[in-house]
């Protein structure tokens, strides 16, 4: 197991290096002068040169890259001219709401998705299977922004049950926080629930056809025990590898959800930074989000290696 994890660890480092290079190149790939693009063309040439120099754009590329990475690792992500603050403080302020929503919806999608997946597989061909499968198909096909609009229309405008916008930390005002989070979390998890349902279902069906399930039946075990003890654990191992990407997808979706529910989180930072051509925030944002994904993937690898004795005992 150690060997497997060590290998994954080094691969992750390599992946992060590649991402940092990609993000770093962004500023040089996008057409036009980066400083004018960020600050507009009506600034004085002196100011332009000053910013150009302070961003280190006059250094050789390799040197620029290492300066940027070095600063990043020390937590200095540069100054954003658009947000008018250091990117590190920006991230510290805007990431928590996104993370809270993302983690909540990831948890909801995994739990409900697995549950529905197991139910549909065990009750294959029964009405509940058909209903959930149809719902899962619709769930995958529904744009989350449209779902957000629909929910706002029904629950905020018509029924006036839930607030249509904003975010409050649960430790500030728990009741309000919950009310504000219901709809965003629901929207962010629908796609996840639907795809986990489908994947768990097919994984379960595959496992149920395996020889060792036949062996378990030939021992006279009850069907419910066979599912619980023999099938579920095996079926979840391949699903586990997908879980690492759940938080990534939730965070990606947060760009849309934050706009729909007017929440100022990390997703909206990325959208704003792009439209304002704020490369400083953009570069660091991309690396930061990718870092989160990589950490999740690594955690999943550890869980995977532990759950599957074939790898654990390698």
């Amino acid at each position, binding site marked *: 197991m150690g060997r497997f994890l060590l290998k994954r660890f080094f691969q992750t480092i390599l992946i992060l290096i590649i991402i940092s290079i990609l993000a770093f190149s962004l500023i040089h790939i996008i057409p036009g002068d980066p400083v004018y693009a960020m600050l507009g063309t009506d600034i004085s040439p002196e100011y332009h040169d000053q910013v150009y120099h302070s961003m280190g754009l006059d250094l050789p590329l390799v040197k620029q890259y290492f300066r940027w990475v070095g600063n990043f690792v020390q937590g200095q992500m540069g100054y954003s001219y658009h947000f008018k603050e250091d990117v590190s403080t920006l991230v510290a302020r805007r990431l928590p709401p996104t993370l809270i929503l993302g983690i909540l919806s990831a948890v909801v999608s995994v739990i409900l998705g697995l549950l529905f997946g197991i139910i549909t597989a065990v009750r294959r061909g029964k009405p509940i299977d058909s209903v959930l499968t149809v719902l899962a198909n*619709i769930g995958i096909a529904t744009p989350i922004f449209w779902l957000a609009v629909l929910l706002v229309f029904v629950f905020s405008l018509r029924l006036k049950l839930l607030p249509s916008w904003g975010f409050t930390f649960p430790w500030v005002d728990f009741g309000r926080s919950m009310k504000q989070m219901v709809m965003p979390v629901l929207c962010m998890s629908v796609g996840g629930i639907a795809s986990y349902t489908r994947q768990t279902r097919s994984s379960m069906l595959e496992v149920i056809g395996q020889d060792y399930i036949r062996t378990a039946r030939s021992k006279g075990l009850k069907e419910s025990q066979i599912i619980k003890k023999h099938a579920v654990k095996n079926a979840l191992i391949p699903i586990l590898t997908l879980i690492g990407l759940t938080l990534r997808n939730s965070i990606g979706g947060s760009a*849309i959800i934050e706009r729909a529910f007017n929440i100022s989180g990390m997703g909206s930072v990325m959208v704003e930074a792009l439209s304002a051509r704020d490369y400083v925030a953009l570069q660091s944002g991309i690396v930061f989000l990718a870092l989160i994904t990589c950490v999740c993937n690594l955690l999943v690898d550890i869980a995977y290696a532990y759950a599957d004795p074939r790898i654990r005992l390698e």
Partner: protein
Amino acid sequence: MSDTKRFFKALFKRKIVAVALVVIIFFLLCAVASPLIATHDPYEQDLFNILKGPSAEHWLGTDNLGRDVYSRIIYGSRIAFTVGIFAVIISGVLGTALGLAAGYFGGWVDSVISRLVEAMMAIPPIVLALALVAIFGRSLPMLTVVMGVSSVPAFARMMRGQVLTVRDLDYVAASRIRGNSNFVTMVKHILPNCLSPMIIVMTQSIGGTILAEAGLSFLGAGVLPPAASWGAMVSDGYTHLSRCPSFALSPGVAVILLVLAFNIFGDGLRDALDPRLRGSR
């Protein structure tokens, strides 16, 4: 002949697949013959009749500039189809080529491609698409390229896996023993046998690509206005949700219908082409 017949029989074994195909064809007609099916010019503004609900004149009401929502949805199918299909072709072709190279050659080629793919997959898809939009711009062809490029990694990974399974099969070794070069073996024996799962996944991803494009337009990073894009329409309508819900909600229904149809058709195609279900033994 008999194989083709068997394929269609398997494809339409579930009636819903046929229904899905009908829906796809319907939207395709809308896209190709938009002027015939639309009732109004989608760009014609009527500032005296803004944000009206459904009526005999405007079946789905009007938007904030008094344009006919129904006609804009019909024209919007052009964007959905263009992006959905061409982006998938781009990512399918590029992904297949990269995956084939990684899987067949192995070694450092594989390592480079695999790490690059994993790196791109670690960036949240929307963020990746936004970054690519910043590079390529927002015209329809460029947007198609963006959507295509952002799903290359998934296809490359899938193809690589396929090649790895096929590469070790006996008939690939048999081809080499018969004296075929690496290139012939790859093109004649490996590629055709990896293609059908790729075609299945490509069909299944058209829906997802349409969804992603809609999401991008919703964020205001899609095709430039005044082009009628479903996502942008929902976004515009959202501001006026309390006054005119039909404006914001109806384009979404179109998205769901088309995406659902593509997904169901893709599943049907998988069931019909899946070699495990075909009587190979």
